[in-house]
């Protein structure tokens, strides 16, 4: 009797295959864990891939010290639940210079995230790093291989990607070179939400609507998550029912006004919306090719 697998079952099987392939072929893999919904799905898949064992690699969080407090809460719990080591890296130079999103703009992302990530990968000697990026997110990601080669300087050369056929991934590399591997490449935002719903995966509560203190700036709704938020003269936080479609550094992540307090309502709103999920990210608005440029420099 033929059993038809659902679309989500096929995606799950493909991702698990990718995770196992890396563990079989890489010397020191690590999983980049950003605490967002994609990371949550990726971590869940890793648990499935290596059950009844625990995933044989650590989680790495490249911290900017400016994430939402709710993200720090879940980070510790998720790692402990999975029985995995959690490595938290903060760029010591950014820390020393007090780099922050209010004063330093693009430098904030570059130093905390891009440079921080490179430092952490080099320090750990990792030769393969899992990332939760999806091809439907952004145009340069739509072009990236599942096993994406990085040279010894962790640079990506989009014009010289290795052919990637069938389910055959070439993980060979010289010493010092590394791979970024994207097990969720073929998932869409809707797939992620449906899977979270179906598998009851714990996510940061900020993805669901609740009354939260906010201010409006440059057309974005920002949440005042702690007392480091600098209010402009006369600016008073207003309580609004909001949720987030993506989570990053709280002063850089735009919220949407919403009444969706459970997952199916979130999915409903997402399907009815007319804007993409990255719209709430200040990082992508600089220029069309900005993500490719950041990725070439080593950003995840």
């Amino acid at each position, binding site marked *: 009797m033929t*059993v038809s697998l659902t679309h989500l079952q*096929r995606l799950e099987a493909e991702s*698990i295959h990718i995770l196992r392939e890396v563990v079989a072929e890489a010397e020191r893999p690590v999983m980049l864990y950003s605490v967002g919904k994609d990371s949550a799905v990726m971590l869940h898949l890793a*648990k499935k891939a290596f059950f009844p064992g625990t995933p044989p690699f650590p989680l790495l969080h490249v911290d900017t010290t400016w994430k939402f407090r709710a993200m720090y809460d879940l980070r510790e719990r998720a790692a402990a639940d999975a029985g995995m080591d959690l490595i938290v890296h903060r760029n010591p130079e950014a820390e020393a210079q007090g780099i922050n999103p209010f004063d330093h703009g693009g430098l904030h992302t570059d130093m905390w995230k891009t440079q921080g990530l490179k430092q952490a990968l080099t320090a750990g000697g990792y030769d393969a790093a899992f990332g939760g990026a999806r091809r439907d997110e952004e145009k340069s990601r*739509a072009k990236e291989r599942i096993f994406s080669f990085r040279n010894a300087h962790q640079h990506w050369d989009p014009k010289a990607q290795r052919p990637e*056929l069938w389910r055959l991934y070439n993980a060979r590399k010289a010493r010092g070179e590394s791979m970024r591997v994207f097990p969720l490449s073929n998932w869409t935002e809707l797939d992620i939400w449906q899977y979270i719903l179906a598998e009851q995966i714990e996510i940061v509560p900020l993805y669901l609507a609740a009354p939260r203190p906010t201010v409006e700036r440059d057309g974005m709704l920002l949440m005042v998550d702690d007392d480091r938020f600098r209010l402009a003269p006369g600016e008073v936080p207003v309580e609004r029912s909001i949720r987030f479609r993506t989570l990053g550094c709280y002063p850089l992540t735009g919220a949407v006004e919403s009444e969706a307090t459970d997952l199916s309502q979130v999915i409903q709103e997402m399907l009815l919306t007319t804007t993409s999920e990255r719209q709430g990210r200040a990082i992508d608005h600089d220029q069309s090719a900005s993500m490719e440029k950041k990725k070439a420099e080593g950003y995840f």
Partner: protein
Amino acid sequence: MHATTSPVSPDREYRPDALIAEDIHAYLAQHQNKSLLRFITCGSVDDGKSTLIGRLLYDTRAIFADQLTALEADSKRVGTQGQNIDFALLVDGLAAEREQGITIDVAYRFFSTARRKFIVADTPGHEQYTRNMVTGASTADAAVILIDARKGVLTQTRRHSFLVHLLKLRHVVLAVNKMDLVGYDQAVFDRIVSDYRAFADSIGIADFTAIPISGLGGDNIAAGSDAMPWYAGPTLIDHLETIDIGTDAAQDRAFRLPVQWVNRPSLDFRGFSGLIASGTVRPGDPVRVLPSGRTTQVARIVTMDGDLPQAVAGQSVTLTLADEIDCSRGDVLATADAPPQVADQFQATIVWLGETAMLPGRSYWLKLGTQTVGATVQEPRHAIDVNTMAELSVKTLNLNDIGVAEVYTDRPLVFEPFEDGADLGGFILIDRTTNATVAAGLLSFSLRRAQNVHWQAIDITRAAHAQQKGQTPRLLWFTGLSGSGKSTIANLVEKKLYALGRHSFLLDGDNVRHGLNKDLGFTDADRIENIRRIGEVARLMTDAGLIVLTAFISPFRAERDMVRAMLPGEFVEIFVDTPLAEAEARDVKGLYAKARSGEIANFTGITSPYEAPERPDIRIDTTRESPEAAAERIVEHILGVWSHDL
């Protein structure tokens, strides 16, 4: 002639499925059961592939308002459609692509309709980016081959059609694009379809569906075309929504699980993980482990969601077995009474994707399923001219060439013909030095079954030969530039061994070339064959128990690694490291002078590269160490190894 673009009309504005607002749970249940079609768009440059995909995304409401705003701004800035939207900018995501207005690499885009979900891979049209086209095609079920109505069937149309057929994509759609630029003329369409049919027949594409479209205007894409009332067939979307995907067909074949990873979290659990390539498996099923051939039964199908009563092709699972038998990554678990074949010589079709040409006889890594082995490709039987399908006589395969050749592996490979599926029939070749993926291959059939190969049984074994001589056989491989001092040092080493009563033999480059290899020249291919023969001769001599010394330039890392693989544990790489300037200054045989004057072609160090060993067993810096001291050190090294062996 100017392109006419239909403006963004109100009925094309984003309009979601009514069910989403009415009953999200019902919508999700329905969406969950939609099938997925993966397809590629391919064809020649400027046939409008990216524009078509942009149009598909736009017409199926897969573009959000903020993306549309960015697109409108980009279109005005760098677009090629004047004030109108340039849909190609939606998919050409790399900066270099936007600058040059071409597609370099495959882009994956996602959309869905009421009936189906789609992943479309937009593949580049330029011949130089064939490897990216092949990447996209390898995971697709269908191909939409675009043709510019003004140009008709071109070389790239034929090349891509042939690759699509080769990779066994199930469906071919011929989209005759830019009908707006030929006045929506039926005669033009009919002529192109007829031309294409003749070509399709010649390469064995039995069936295809032809649709006249305009990517720019949206004709026959999501909606029909008022301009082409003579066309009564389906729109492109209609057709893609209804073609049979056949994803469940793999379940009807025999069970095969390439073992990816052995899961051993504790002493009590030993599971074999992998993605089921074909068939169905249940606890209690008798299975065979290939290539060893041992049999056992499946005990459990373990997942985090609990044990399963059954698993099917396409699922990633972990099996436990009833008996403790040897099984590791690269092995294949299969139905006990219908196992796949095991062989080490094959005929294969090869698409060469490397910048440097294939070298017949060179050892590459071959990856098939979860198996990685050393493999050599023989001189091609023929290459295929994609225009005429003629079989061309060739010595090698260059970038983007497609040919048929024999492939020999250094270990038996569990396989099935590519006809039966890519999981055990498709392979890649990886360059051992650069680690680049240099070829895609499709196994046709085995030339001999490995299980039928028997070595002549000999009573006096190689161990007996070695024991008689009281020594461990070794191959001391001296490598270095011409004039570096290889022969001098090797000669001193042999004299010392002789004095110590060891049995040895020195194979010298010049001497071998006077006899055994006098038919070989100095091209890269001949150099490889030279080394292969020397390796085989050295292996016979070590079988006889001898310590073999060889002094050859042996400039390529891959060939030295090949010989190392032939003599595991016995190969000692000795790098006679003399700088080029020093070797040239010595120029004992006057060869450098001749090479510099152009009298000798392909001279290592001058007109041909020397790839120095990265981790030689012994390195000799002849500018600091005398030949005598070096020879002493080598003898000590191998005697030291002997004392460890004892």
